[in-house]
């Protein structure tokens, strides 16, 4: 960190690795998410003393026992009702790295908030109450995580203290949940028996469960590989906008979603099929770089004239995405109004915004029971998951989700509102 007091330093950009890991806590309401987050903050020394005092005073005033959950549930209404309504984010640190904790609501009514919070996570912790076992949201949230493509999933069996730290009970839950997760093709990294309330196996190992020899929660979190491989995939550079302010320069701007782009590269823009050679990767108040990679918001200038707009995707001709007017996808629906076959929606995929029609509802499943809910296949209700065939008014640029996530996922907008999210299966 030395030698940068002054002008912007390029050295800093390449030397320091991105060290933050985003983790989301999900599961049924009352299974102890906020309590566990509070426990983690406390034991990693991440709470300011004033904040703790403030929350303790609230508990005294209300005549209730101190709860860590109050650290996260900041809204008066959340504290009154004892439920998380909207996502909170807080940070804590271990010796290895910083964690951004996304505490998502477990109440069915707030599923869309959970999805919103979980969609940006690198890893997910699924909480189950040892006493209550699998409940509706324990299953639904697992289904959502699998659809969001979150690979690092850890199952936490909480409130072990209420079940006398029973190994038999724990093993049965592990077996039940493993069977359910298998149908989703999800393999958790670990099952960990804990008590967030008492503090067993969260940061410290206690003497309560001598039969458990696996990792503590912190140990398993620190073992997750946070390396992102988007830069090693094919170039996808969706145009966000083209700027031309005072100068003669036209800045073709956007974020590289995957791959790398170099000065001198020939870029093919799709769907228009126009090409241009990168004359510079432009930056303000920083030296001009020779290349840029996934995650960077950049602007390029090109040799010769180029007329392309927002929505075009820049690629290398040697590794092209798919371009077409239809694809099949799995979606989850969050809209109050049912998604209907034959109806028109707006799809947003990277910076593309195109009118689309639901050509066919292939199957609809209840995201909790995974049962097929509909035989006539005309509608998808709120909180249901479905496989659809979508048809577009004009060409759309995409990849299958399992090849490039960033160009393989989209949202559907119904009457101004983002009402569904989906991942692309195939053309």
């Amino acid at each position, binding site marked *: 960190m030395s030698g*940068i*007091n002054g*002008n*912007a330093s390029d050295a*800093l*950009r390449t*030397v*320091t*690795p*991105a060290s*933050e890991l985003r983790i989301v806590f999900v599961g049924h309401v009352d299974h102890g998410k906020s309590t566990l987050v509070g426990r983690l903050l406390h034991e990693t020394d991440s709470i*300011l003393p*004033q*904040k703790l005092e403030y929350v303790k005073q*609230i508990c005294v*005033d209300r005549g209730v026992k101190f709860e860590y959950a109050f650290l*996260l549930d*900041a*809204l*008066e209404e959340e504290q009154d009702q004892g439920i998380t*309504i*909207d*996502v*909170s*984010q807080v*940070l804590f640190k271990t010796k290895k790295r910083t964690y951004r904790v996304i505490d998502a609501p477990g109440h069915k009514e*707030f599923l*869309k*908030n959970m999805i*919103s919070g979980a*969609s*940006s996570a690198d890893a997910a912790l699924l909480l189950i109450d040892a006493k209550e076992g699998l409940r509706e949201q324990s299953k639904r949230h697992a289904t959502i995580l699998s659809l969001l493509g979150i690979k690092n999933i850890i199952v936490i069996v909480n409130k072990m203290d209420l079940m006398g730290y029973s190994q038999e009970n724990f093993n049965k839950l592990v077996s039940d949940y493993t069977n359910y997760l298998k149908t989703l093709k999800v393999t958790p990294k670990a099952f960990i028996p804990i008590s967030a309330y008492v503090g067993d196996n969260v940061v410290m190992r206690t003497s309560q469960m001598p039969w458990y020899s696996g990792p503590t929660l912190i140990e398993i979190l620190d073992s997750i590989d946070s390396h992102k491989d988007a830069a090693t995939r094919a170039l996808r550079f969706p145009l*966000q*906008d083209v*700027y031309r*302010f*005072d100068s003669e*320069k036209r800045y073709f*701007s*956007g*974020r590289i979603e995957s791959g790398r782009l170099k000065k001198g590269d020939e870029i093919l823009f799709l769907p228009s099929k126009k090409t241009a050679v990168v004359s510079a990767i432009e*930056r*303000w*108040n920083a030296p001009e770089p020779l290349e840029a*990679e996934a*995650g960077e*918001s950049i*602007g390029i200038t090109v040799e010769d004239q180029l007329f392309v707009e*927002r929505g075009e995707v820049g690629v290398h001709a040697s590794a092209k995405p798919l371009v077409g007017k239809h694809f099949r996808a799995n979606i989850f629906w*969050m809209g109050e109004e049912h998604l209907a076959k034959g109806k028109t929606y707006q799809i*947003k995929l990277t910076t593309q915004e195109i009118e689309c029609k639901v050509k066919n509802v292939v199957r609809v499943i209840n995201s909790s029971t995974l049962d097929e809910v509909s035989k006539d296949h005309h509608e998808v209700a709120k909180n249901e998951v479905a496989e659809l065939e979508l048809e577009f008014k004009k060409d759309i640029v995409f990849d299958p989700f399992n090849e490039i996530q*960033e160009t393989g*996922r*989209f*949202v559907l*907008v119904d009457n*101004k*509102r*983002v009402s569904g*999210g989906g991942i692309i299966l195939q053309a």
Partner: protein
Amino acid sequence: MDHLSALESQSIFIIREAYKKFKKPAMLWSMGKDSCVNVWLARKAFFGKVPFPVVHIDTTFKFPEMYAYREHFAKEWGLKLIVGVNQAAKDRGVSYANNDAVTVCHEMKTVALQQMIEKEKWDGLFVGIRRDEDGTRAKEKYFSPRNIDFEWNYKDQPPELWNQFQSDYDPGTHVRIHPLLEWTEVDVWNYVKRENIPLVDLYFAKNGKRYRTLGCQPITKPVESNADTIDKVIEELKNTKISERVGRDQDHSQRYAMQKLRAKGYM
């Protein structure tokens, strides 16, 4: 990419997205460190030029150093500066001498902003709040709509998946855009250092005290500190056990004060 570059890139993406989506965007600028970083990020996003107005909602109770900074850098950076004052409240004598902090904040900030939005018809407002400042700010989204009465419906916020934001809203809605939402106080200072962003010198210690945040002069208290350089400030923040907004009276005047202020439209 390192942590600061990743934050910068995400913020630039948000700013560009909002610039594309809103017909009349504007950026709030209080001359505080966060909103200065916000302005800096806008210059980054648009290659040196800020293509929308920068707005100072002026309570008229700011520090003289802040007004001097505003005049100097608005000019140097070529900003289109708009200053908004709730003159009616001022004429009624609303002030810290006559009223409590929550009332003054509401009148001179929230109502002043309401008046300006009414007048200028802004539909997208860049605001430099961060999640780590306060529990209710932690629940904000990147694009956060406020209805015509300035209310925030935190129970039913539009989902934000994969950087897709709701871009169409009912008439009368204005959207708060929060490019710095995921930054922490230390991130802001590290970025100030990396980019060499000039700040109001009240942030640096003199005679054993410095201001950790800047608001209205009568209700903003300095903290004990000997940090008189950026490096020392960063070092101090890494070890502090005191929360950032401790010196801002309006936050602590009553329980859930921030939630109540914010429910009525405060930033």
